[in-house]
């Protein structure tokens, strides 16, 4: 029989937004609470817009964050400006919180590399979205190693999905972070599905936080739909890393309320009942009810917020639409720092093909 090990699990609010016990001291800061609430709503409004833009052919395949807004929002907020994010592709919430412009995020999903170029000054050293699953974890090891080598009090934070925890890169990275005691926080967004593969077929480990045990580092679970819990635990892990106490693995337990991406149809492989049940735990309503109870929120404020967010997102979409065409030579301009002479002819051929395409010529 596998040994049974109790992994810590943190939740502060129940689905109704009722505190389950004493709340951490920082919860007394209404500004922070309202910021988190506003930001989670922004993520959701923006997410819905992205899906609409994809449906109308204005951007390409897009990975929705529906139901997972708390994780990235709390995470982005807990990081300081000097920390570095090494994200995966379902990190819109984190990127927004890191100050990335919505139009850049739209550019990226719209199939334009410039989306990963124009980061905010905060995110200037952040990694771009990583598509090959779990590889970002090793890059995070490198970033955290650089901090260690240079003895900077900075922290690297990397994210991934539940599926990603099965890939060697993830486990190799946890292991290195343990041996080298890197200033590195691993966040798992366990949304229960890796496309159509359920969490139960991904690993027989009782929790994904158990993976930490194999690397000799602390691992814990947190209710990923409770933004207070996520913020509290991420913040603690980041400050622990900053203090030189090493890495932490944090599994945020949530649910992917949307399809995997806009190319997917989740109804093929999961039941309507499961989805209905999952909606009961979603994070925005939960925080909203808590704010209501605290007297920090009401219907009017809600309406004003939604109106404001809608406008903000629409403005970003306008800005996205106004971005100038990309330089057709860009694929060669950014291949090496300096283009070798022998590549000039190919660049010219590329320009000719691009011109034909633009001109609507044959082929």
């Amino acid at each position, binding site marked *: 029989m596998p040994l049974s090990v109790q992994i810590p699990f943190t939740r502060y609010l129940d689905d109704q937004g009722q505190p389950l016990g004493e709340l951490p001291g920082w919860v007394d800061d209404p500004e922070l609470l309202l910021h988190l609430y506003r930001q989670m709503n922004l993520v959701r409004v923006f997410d819905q817009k992205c899906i609409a833009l994809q449906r109308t052919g204005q951007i*390409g395949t897009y990975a929705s964050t529906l139901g997972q807004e708390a994780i990235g929002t709390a995470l982005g907020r807990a990081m300081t400006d000097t920390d570095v994010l090494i994200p995966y592709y379902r990190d819109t919430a984190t990127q927004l919180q890191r100050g990335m412009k919505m139009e850049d995020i739209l550019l990226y999903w*719209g*199939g334009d590399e410039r989306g990963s170029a124009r980061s905010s000054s905060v995110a200037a050293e952040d990694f771009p979205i990583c598509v090959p699953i779990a590889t970002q974890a090793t890059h995070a090891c490198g970033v955290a190693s650089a901090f260690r080598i240079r003895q900077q009090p900075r922290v690297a934070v990397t994210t991934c999905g539940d599926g990603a925890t099965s890939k*060697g890169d993830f486990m190799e990275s946890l292991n290195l972070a343990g041996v080298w005691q890197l200033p590195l926080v691993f966040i798992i967004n366990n949304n229960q599905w890796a*496309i159509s593969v359920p969490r139960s077929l*991904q690993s027989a480990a009782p929790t994904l936080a158990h993976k930490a045990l194999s690397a000799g580092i602390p691992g814990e679970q947190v209710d990923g739909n409770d933004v207070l819990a996520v913020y509290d635990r991420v913040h603690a892990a980041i400050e622990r890393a900053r203090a030189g106490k090493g890495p932490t693995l944090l599994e945020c337990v949530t649910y992917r309320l949307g399809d995997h991406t806009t*190319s997917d149809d989740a109804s093929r492989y999961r039941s309507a009942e499961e989805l209905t049940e999952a909606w009961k735990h979603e994070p925005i309503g939960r925080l909203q009810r808590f704010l209501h109870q605290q007297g920090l929120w009401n219907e009017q404020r809600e309406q004003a917020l939604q109106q404001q967010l809608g406008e903000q997102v629409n403005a970003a979409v306008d800005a996205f639409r106004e971005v100038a065409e990309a330089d057709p030579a860009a694929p060669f301009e950014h*291949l090496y720092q300096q283009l070798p002479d022998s590549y000039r002819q190919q660049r010219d051929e590329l320009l000719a093909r691009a011109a034909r*395409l633009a001109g609507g010529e044959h*082929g």
Partner: protein
Amino acid sequence: MAEQSTICMVEAINLALHRAMADDPDVVVLGEDVGPNGGVFRATLGLHERFGFRRVMDTPLAEALITGTAVGMAAQGLKPVAEIQFMGFIYPGMEHLVSHASRLRSRTRGRLSCPMVIRTPHGAGIHAPEHHGESTEALLAHVPGLRVVIPSSPRRAYGLLLAAIADPDPVIFLEPSRLYRSVRQTVEDDGQPLPLDTCFTLREGSDLTLVSWGAALKETLEAAGRLAEQGIDCEVIDVATLKPLDTQTLLASVSKTRRCVIVHEAARSYGPGAEIAAILQEQLFHELHAPVQRVTGFDCVIPYARQEMAYLPDVDSICQAALRTMEEAP
């Protein structure tokens, strides 16, 4: 009589998988999302329901594992057909392909062997995200002991996949995703494999040989049509199996036409076209009227969707190269 239907390439692949699994209990399928979801392109649709979870296995997300597990299964005499979700995600499995799948027979002097198939979508042009448009077949074709096959029509996909599964050695089966649903053909479900190691001549001609494979054959055939209008009679060859290469068909064609243009999506330098050009000039130095030309993808990172199409060889580029080739005096 075998059933015949008008289907697209991904349906032909699905048909071949159903056929192979029904005919041989040793055929098993594994990969990410190949089970109840039927694969992200639906190539494995219905297999799970029909053959059960024991033979149709959703794996955890780990391509080295998928590839290595297939090696182990194959050594036991199963015929695993593993799906890698996109060619851009085949690289974690490279160590198993280069160091094991291709070597198990040689390493044990024939005691063990590795009759496995890796299927994966190949090529750009479907406006998918980054890494979903790779055409790095050269990396695999360079590896001794592997076979590398790329179909270019539903019928060839059906027959070549059956052959790949039946083959006693490891086969990388690259499926041009741009062709998955764009062409329909009648395909007879007769269980007949097509020969591996053989090029297919898709169009006979006497002035010029156009050599291509996979999705780029679409533009290549279109170019042949356009060139015909200009009085240039092209032979079009679908290489289909890049490794081992059927040099005979290629040499026969080019020694007839004495001119050759190679078209491929992959990056040019150290790309698959180089080998074909090198062989042709080695073997047909005195016959060739013009240098063998290559029309290819570029030596840059495949651009994201917005600039993706300019990366692909277009009909104009092929025609231009053909015309340059024809300009050379005999």
